[in-house]
């Protein structure tokens, strides 16, 4: 089944593919360096940069379509060249990176345009667009790199942009903390990705995609498993999947266009990209695929359950993103033809989720930045465009026929049922259950926001619709939410077949339930979930949080993931830090000063400054010795391994 991955050298138009990264990067640099001088027109430069990247991307995409070998490489310069370790600053434009380029720059352009209006009252708008362009550049590098080091380069780059934009309103302590949390949790994943890259170099002597993919079949099964798990850790960090999901909802502290572009449509799907790109690695180990599927299934249910209990419009959407990416992980974990299905869902999700986030931003814009859905209600009469466009997004995400989610999610559910044995039931039912839950909480969100009685705060008299610069992107994205799914699901799988490795497909197993039954079941569950939510919330809800049972309370607290992180990492970490600071000042330093005083006898200056307890010196020296011995043993073990 092995087929060789082959990339050809870029020529003609495609040899300028580096412009995709360079243009937004240059724009970001200009906006940052010019400072206030660019305040008046900076946002337009930002829009122009992403818009022209879209036009370029589209023309590359079209020229790729006419080519025999659709994987085009471009090596710009030697990035790192030390001994056997040779890394190009190289790009790869192939069907997979092509669709990502279009998503990033296409949806990106619309969100940039929207942000011109959304951020018009913010004095930091120029800086905002600088960071936004920086993000686009890094994200494009991430999907365009032709080796894992380039991917890592873009990977940490988008992490930086994400941090900058989450903590954009840095004077708000919660925003600053959320940004830091996102960066730190991402770095945990990044460390995994980095070690994965080390393994590639140690075993295969390369980090170039083409060489890794062609060499991976020669590796031991255990090596592939460890390598894949490390990549998965990186993917989970970036994509807000279990166990690294807790940062994503907090990321909603950033301005809403950021949530739409980075934390819904593009960056958080980078994990899916990583796994799809690395498909020769993941397809090579069955256990590995099962782990990916399990992470996806678990996370998609977690996202649904928590999303159903939240009252902050952006957080509900954030948890729905976590959940939808769970579907994508499920898809890429299933392997074979499901890789393409996951990418289709990713693209469709990019449209409808960006649509809903921008819609939420439009609601907040008209409601004095209120985010609590208990204080909305009846807005359909006041914001007609926002209401109608949001409705398209809502119908799309719950997978209603014939909106885009139906065409993109349904096949993943079917594919889950095509697994071998009992796991087909386990993962298939999880995906099916998720569809019903999604319909429930998204309908709850939709009804409580736009319908039912008004529950507004006293200071709001007449909510206004947003200006055209914000509604036009909404309308365009809504059109995408309606039509994208059908179009994508009929074209993208064939298109992606030319991507290195993705073409090699095994024959799927027979599904344990027939396709027709599954479609009927998922539509039935969707209608049931939506209907239940309508019955429960058509008359509005209480304006304050009500006491609730165990399950709802747990869901409100994000299923205690923050509590667990705090108990396992944060508190012991803080304790350890404090203890070490004490030890270092009193112990190690004291020991040396004490020794100096004892030896020197007359060095009174030093003696005055230290505490003078022999016992504490002894303890600290013992601790130090133990540390050294422990580290030494670890190293010896490392050499034996």
């Amino acid at each position, binding site marked *: 089944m092995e087929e060789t991955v082959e990339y050809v050298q870029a020529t003609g138009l495609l040899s300028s593919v580096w412009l995709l990264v360079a243009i937004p990067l240059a724009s970001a640099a200009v906006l940052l360096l010019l400072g206030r001088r660019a305040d008046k027109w900076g946002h337009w430069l930002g829009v122009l940069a992403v818009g022209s990247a879209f036009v370029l991307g589209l023309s590359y995409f079209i020229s790729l379509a006419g080519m025999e070998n659709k994987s085009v490489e471009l090596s710009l310069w030697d990035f*790192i060249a030390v001994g056997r370790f040779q890394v190009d600053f190289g790009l790869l434009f192939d069907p997979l990176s092509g669709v990502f380029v279009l998503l990033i720059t296409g949806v990106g352009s619309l969100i940039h345009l929207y942000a011109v209006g959304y951020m018009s009252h913010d004095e930091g708008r120029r800086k905002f667009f600088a960071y936004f362009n920086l993000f686009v550049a890094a994200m494009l590098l991430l999907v365009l790199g032709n080796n894992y080091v380039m991917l890592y380069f873009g990977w940490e780059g988008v992490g930086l942009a994400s941090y900058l934009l989450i903590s954009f309103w840095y004077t708000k302590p919660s925003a600053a903390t959320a940004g830091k949390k996102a960066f730190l949790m991402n770095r945990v994943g990044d460390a995994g990705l980095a070690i994965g890259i080390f393994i590639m170099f140690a075993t*295969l002597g390369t980090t170039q995609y083409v060489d890794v993919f062609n060499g991976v079949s020669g590796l031991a099964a255990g090596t592939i498993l460890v390598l894949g798990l490390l990549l998965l850790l990186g993917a989970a960090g970036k994509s807000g999947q279990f166990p690294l999901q807790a940062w994503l909802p907090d990321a909603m502290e950033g301005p809403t266009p950021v949530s739409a572009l980075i934390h819904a449509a593009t960056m958080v799907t980078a994990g899916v990209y990583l796994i799809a790109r690395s498909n020769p690695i993941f397809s090579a180990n069955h256990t590995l695929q099962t782990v990916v599927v399990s992470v996806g299934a678990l996370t998609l249910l977690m996202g649904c359950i928590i999303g159903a209990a939240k009252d902050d419009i952006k957080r509900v959407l954030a948890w729905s993103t976590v959940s939808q990416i769970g579907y994508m992980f499920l898809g890429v974990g299933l392997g074979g033809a499901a890789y393409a299905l996951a990418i289709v869902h990713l693209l469709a999700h990019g449209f409808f989720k960006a649509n809903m986030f921008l819609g939420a931003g439009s609601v907040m814009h008209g409601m004095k930045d209120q985010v609590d859905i208990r204080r909305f209600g009846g807005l359909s009469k006041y914001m007609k465009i926002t209401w109608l466009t949001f409705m398209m997004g809502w119908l799309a995400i719950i997978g209603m026929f014939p909106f885009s989610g139906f065409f993109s999610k349904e096949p993943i559910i079917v594919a889950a049922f095509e697994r071998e044995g009992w796991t087909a039931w386990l993962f298939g039912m999880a995906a099916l259950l998720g569809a019903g839950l999604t319909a429930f909480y998204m309908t709850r969100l939709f009804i409580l926001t736009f319908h039912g009685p008004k529950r507004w705060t006293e200071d709001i008299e007449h909510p206004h619709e947003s200006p055209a610069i914000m509604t036009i992107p909404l309308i365009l994205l809504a059109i995408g939410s309606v039509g994208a799914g059908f179009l994508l699901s009929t074209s993208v799988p064939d298109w992606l077949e030319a991507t290195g490795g993705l073409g090699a497909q095994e024959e799927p197993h027979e599904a344990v339930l027939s396709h027709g039954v599954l479609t009927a079941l998922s539509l039935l569950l969707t209608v049931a979930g939506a209907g239940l939510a309508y019955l429960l919330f058509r008359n509005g809800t209480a304006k304050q949080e009500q006491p609730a049972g165990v399950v709802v309370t747990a869901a409100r607290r994000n299923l205690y993931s923050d509590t667990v992180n705090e108990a396992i990492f944060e508190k012991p970490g803080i304790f350890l830090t404090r203890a070490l600071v004490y030890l270092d000042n009193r112990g190690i330093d004291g020991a040396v000063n004490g020794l100096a005083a004892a030896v020197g006898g007359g060095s009174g200056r030093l003696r005055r400054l230290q505490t003078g307890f022999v016992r504490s010196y002894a303890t600290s020296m013992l601790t130090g010795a133990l540390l050294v011995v422990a580290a030494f043993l*670890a190293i010896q073990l490392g050499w034996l391994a």
Partner: protein
Amino acid sequence: MAGVNNFPFLSILTLGPLVGAAVVACIPKAKGNLAKIVALAVSLVMLVLSVFMWVAFQVGGDAQRFQFRESYPWIPGLGVNFTFAADGIALVMLMLIAVLVPLVILASWHDAEQSRRSVPVYFALLLSLEACMFGVFAAADVFLFYVFFEVMLVPMYFIIGSYGTAKRQYAAVKFFLYSLVGGLFMLAAVIGLWVVGGKTFDWVALTQIDIQTGTERWLFLGFFIAFAIKAPFFPFHTWLPDAGGAAPAGAAALLVGVLDKVGTFGILRYCLPLFPEASQWFAPWAIALALIGIIYAALLAVGQNDLKRLVSYTSIAHFGFIGIGIFAFTTQAGTGAVLYMLNHGLATGLLFLVVGMFVARRGSALVSDFGGAGKLVPVLAGVLFFAGLASLALPGTAPFVSEFLVLIGVFTVNKTVAVIATLGIILAAAYVLWMVQRTTQGTLNPALADIEPMRKDITLREKVVVAPLIALLIVLGFYPKPVTDVINPAVEATMQQDMGKQDPAPTGGGVTEASR
């Protein structure tokens, strides 16, 4: 190029600042500005000269390992010579000195005025420090190296002791004593080496001799202890936070950015080539110390409430990376370690200098005395953040390349060490971001807004100081090849010729060097 290659770059670089220091020291106390301008001019001349030297250095093909060699007899009876020569490793460090010193002088423009001491003397001390630093990296005679290694302490001692903050006396004495103790060990080893080496101090001659295993290990230890204190490695590190915290910011940038690198440079230049067997025998212990340093110092950095001490602790963690890189004995890790020495000098230099700008405004280095400063000084806060990013080795900044090289090189020989060290990158994010958050983000500390200098964002002079460092960090982050091409041959010579170590081949049998 042969003519240029014979130009006595190294002796001019060493003597030039010394002459400059003498001139500046003679300038009357009242004419402080003249002293500053002369000092800056001298350091700029050295920078220009170093750039010429960089260009003249031959790379690739049959280029010699050591270039610009000069030798003048000093104490013929003992075989001591003034021998200077530079390989790629030394060249990079010399360049770092040449770049940093003018920037530090410019950054320290008003530092000495706050103390009651003489302004010209401060700048004379900085220039004499530059001379010693050039000398210690350019020396190719073991005794000459030792002399510079010790003499270097003197200007730094006076800079900390006379121009530092409140705890300066304690810090200066501690710095001096620690280094002196290390120096004594080294002196013993130098004499021992002279005896077993046939009464010569010439580095090339000494690499050729065979030393009895037991003797070799003792001699190694003598050098290693001195270097481990200088670098510093855990548990010899406690002098650095005190010295770094008490020194004026500019001097601290030189102390941590350059002076400490003498330790890691010394290990690479003296321990490994002179005592290859002992180096391998002690490698697990050295790596253990370095590895503890990475995690331990990073945790301590998280817990610091003094900006300058915090930066000092981050440096100890970074020296740990350099340490494991050196003792992994592979070309990637070794080249990464040397590149790390350069990049850390640039990044931590920038970090210390920008911290100094904050401290000069606030009159305090305590993190808790800041809070929300980004509102008042947005550009300065941006520079602090950038320096932090470079310190946590974000791709796009130079330190990423070196850290990645070190880790990937170490991973090929010892997975456990590399994996534990990789955890350090998470801690690095923690100490940088928490520091940034506590100083520049969040609600504005009301006390801060009342302080007049805090309302003045970055000045033109400060922009001139930080801009070259930022530019270098970014350029080398995207295109490090000009530097790695200089370092790599020297590291390969050290690892393969001197140590007899070859890089391990890929274990998966996949792509080999030949097939690329």
